[in-house]
């Protein structure tokens, strides 16, 4: 019931965020020096040619007028046309999104399957022990090594030596799901390394924090098994920061995908947005940022809901709202 009362407020807040971001990004991309005509026509072009191109795409109209036209179109489901490909932005996104989603799914799956168990393992071992030190070392390296370095090394190794997987020739999950997996594994793993490392680190810290709580001591005193204690007392209470992190990482993956997609030549959404920024392909940039905002807002909303369900104490009913 509280959820039903709380949700409309949060949705309204999300809507305000989206409108704010749309205004901000619209103003930001148009204040960038150099427009589409400058980039595409190049330095040799005449001012007349640039003006004609600006008129062709309505870039000669005032900024508020352009914004209004874009918003009205977006409300009808038309997010504009890419000036580069002359195709609707929604079509461009639809062809690229499955690849970025595929990478994200691989990265999050590896994060959950490796990062959380690794964090629990190192968190439940003695802090000075070999496994704890090793876990922290692995986490530190994973967090520290930049994605472009790791990606470049992987590209070199897998192209230089026959190691079973190839770089490039990516197949979209939308075309052939089974065939896409081997082509997305390498970039997916690179994308996952930072997520695994940071999740392991956060999980370890959360587990260590819960382990010193009195109720865990009481469970030990009651003679409950170690596995039971970890599953029912430690993990449940440590799950909130982990959940928050994994949700944040999910949103982060769109940004992280930029580098990985570029280095591995994956024609996904991340690399497309960077390309669009360089070319001042306004409709693509605006829609891409809006999409990323939606993902982030939805994930935040989801985390809030789940957090409240996991730990009702977090629900701030006392403060007059649900979470």
């Amino acid at each position: 019931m509280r959820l039903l009362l709380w949700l409309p407020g949060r949705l309204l807040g999300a809507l305000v965020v989206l409108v704010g971001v749309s205004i901000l990004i619209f103003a930001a991309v148009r204040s960038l020096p150099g427009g589409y005509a400058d980039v595409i026509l190049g330095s040799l072009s005449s001012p007349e040619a640039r003006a004609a191109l600006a008129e062709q795409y309505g870039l000669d109209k005032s900024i508020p007028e352009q914004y209004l036209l874009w918003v009205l179109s977006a409300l009808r489901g038309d997010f504009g046309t890419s000036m580069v490909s002359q195709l609707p932005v929604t079509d461009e996104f639809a062809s690229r999104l499955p690849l970025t989603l595929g990478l994200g799914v691989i990265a999050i799956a590896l994060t959950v399957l490796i990062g959380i168990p690794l964090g629990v393992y190192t968190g439940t071992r003695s802090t000075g022990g070999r496994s704890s030190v090793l876990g922290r070392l692995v986490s530190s390296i994973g967090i520290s090594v930049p994605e472009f370095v790791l990606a470049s090394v992987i590209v070199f190794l897998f192209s230089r030596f026959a190691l079973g997987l190839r770089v490039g020739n990516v197949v979209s999950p939308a075309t052939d799901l089974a065939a896409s997996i081997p082509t997305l594994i390498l970039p997916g793993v690179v994308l996952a390394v930072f997520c695994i490392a940071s999740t392991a680190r956060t999980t370890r810290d959360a587990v260590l924090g819960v382990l010193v709580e009195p109720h865990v001591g009481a469970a030990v005193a009651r003679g409950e098994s170690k596995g039971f204690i970890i599953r029912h007392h430690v993990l449940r209470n440590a799950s909130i920061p982990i959940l928050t992190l994994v949700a944040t990482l999910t949103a982060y993956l769109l940004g992280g995908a930029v580098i990985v997609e570029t280095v591995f030549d994956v024609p996904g959404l991340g690399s497309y947005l960077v390309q669009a920024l360089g070319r001042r392909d306004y409709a693509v940039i605006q829609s891409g940022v809006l999409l990323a905002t939606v993902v982030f807002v939805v994930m935040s909303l989801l985390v809030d809901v789940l957090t409240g369900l996991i730990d009702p104490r977090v629900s701030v009913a006392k403060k007059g709202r649900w979470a």
Partner: protein
Amino acid sequence: MKRTPLAIGLLATALVLTACTAPTTESTAATEEQPGYLAVADPSLATGGDLSVQLDYDSVEANGLDPQTATTARSWTLMGLVYDTLVTVGPDFSIEPGLATSWDTPSDTEYVFTLRDDAVFSNGRPMTADDVVGSLQRLLDSKSDWSLQLGQVSSVQATGGNEVTVTLAAPYTSFLGALANTPAAILPMTEIADGSVDITTTMLGTGPYVVQDHVQDQSWTFGPNEHYYGAATRGPESVAVDIVTEENTRLAAIRDGSADYAFFNNVDALDLLGGTENARVVNQQNTDFYYLIINSQNPDSPLADQKVRFAINSALDRQEISDIALAGQALPTGVTPATLPGACPAADLPSEKPTTDEIKQALADAGAEDLDLTITLYNTEPALAQIAQVMQQELAAVGVNLTIENLDIGSFVDKIYSSSPSDIDLALSWYAGYGDAAMVSKWWNGDVSTFTAGFKANDPAQNALQVAAGSEPAGAERDATMVELCASVDESSELVPLVTRPGVIGYRTDSLSPTINTNEGYGSVLRDIVDYRMIDAG
């Protein structure tokens, strides 16, 4: 004893690193298989087969797929697979037949072209003289960049069933060179006129291939043009072009054989692919060259003083720039690209003569000691940053402190071309050099290249030299004019040519036997594709 695992670990690491290091081999980068060719396809191999190519960027043009307004080398390369031109260029930049089998020049302003009688558009309609006339007229009317390169054309007329006559208003030596590039392609004018073909979205030419599929910024698939006049001797049956922006990924494709042929902008590719089994990498010289803008148009800047600009120009060592920034693969050049016939020798430029002490003295005399300047460049051309770093050291030696400002291309263009005077001290970029020295030198002619007005004075004397270089017939007299033009450009030191812009091509020797010319004028990295042979085509 406990140290044994550590020692083994170090040894193993050393072995792995050794294995990862490309073995040093004798470079074949500049070795010609035949005069003018770095590689020549084996004609004994069968025609046919599927060629896989990786290029660095896709064609992105304001007018889509219209070749006449295309401005970038990749557009010319890709559209050149579908379209033919009246003439083409040979390995030594001599003009060779294309859709015109021959041409006469009854006077120095008149060109009479005899057309092939077997050229057919890919829709099955034979090419006519009207297509040629209409195409050239359309190009002239377009006022595009390339229409400037055609010179002053008075008329284009069909003077016979298979004959077209072009009359110029004034002699123009570069005319045939301008006709040899993709923007001068012959279009299906009947279909364009009746609206059955939109040339901005559909490519319909007389060339060897037709477009089967194109995904912007991702890939092109070309199939055979069944009506191509040279179909019997066409090499690959199909061409798959992947657009791979990341250089390392293209290197990977040549290493593991997932691409037969790839182009690289970075000369480091020569080393990075060196020693790769079943692969060869070559440095193809271009007429393209890097240049430095020294903004003369800001009256408040010390660079408004020609003596200061010339001193800065003189402090630059072009050979050192090539050696350090471009692995010695580039050639010092004046305004006439060093790789073109009749180019002025860069070593003879006036700026090559002053010593370091003389340069310092010149700066002191001009009251420009301890100058702080900013050099602006853009980040999609990695060599620019490398060149700027070398220049930073060279200018430091004469007391000029150089700060490097590396922008994205939009900001770069905006900063240089959106205001007059331009909002820069120095800037680095490159020009395509084309197939005749008078073509690129147009950008030094202020009457033609109004876009340089923000940083370069319009010098009537320099303009006259440029026009003379374009109108004099090839020979000693024209070469002397070019030397004079080079000296004038060098003395004014506003738009300073530095070194040529090399391109690197890598290919698999176990799958492809290509023909690659030593020097390229139009960035057409697939120029002789119809001569390529796939090893397993038979």
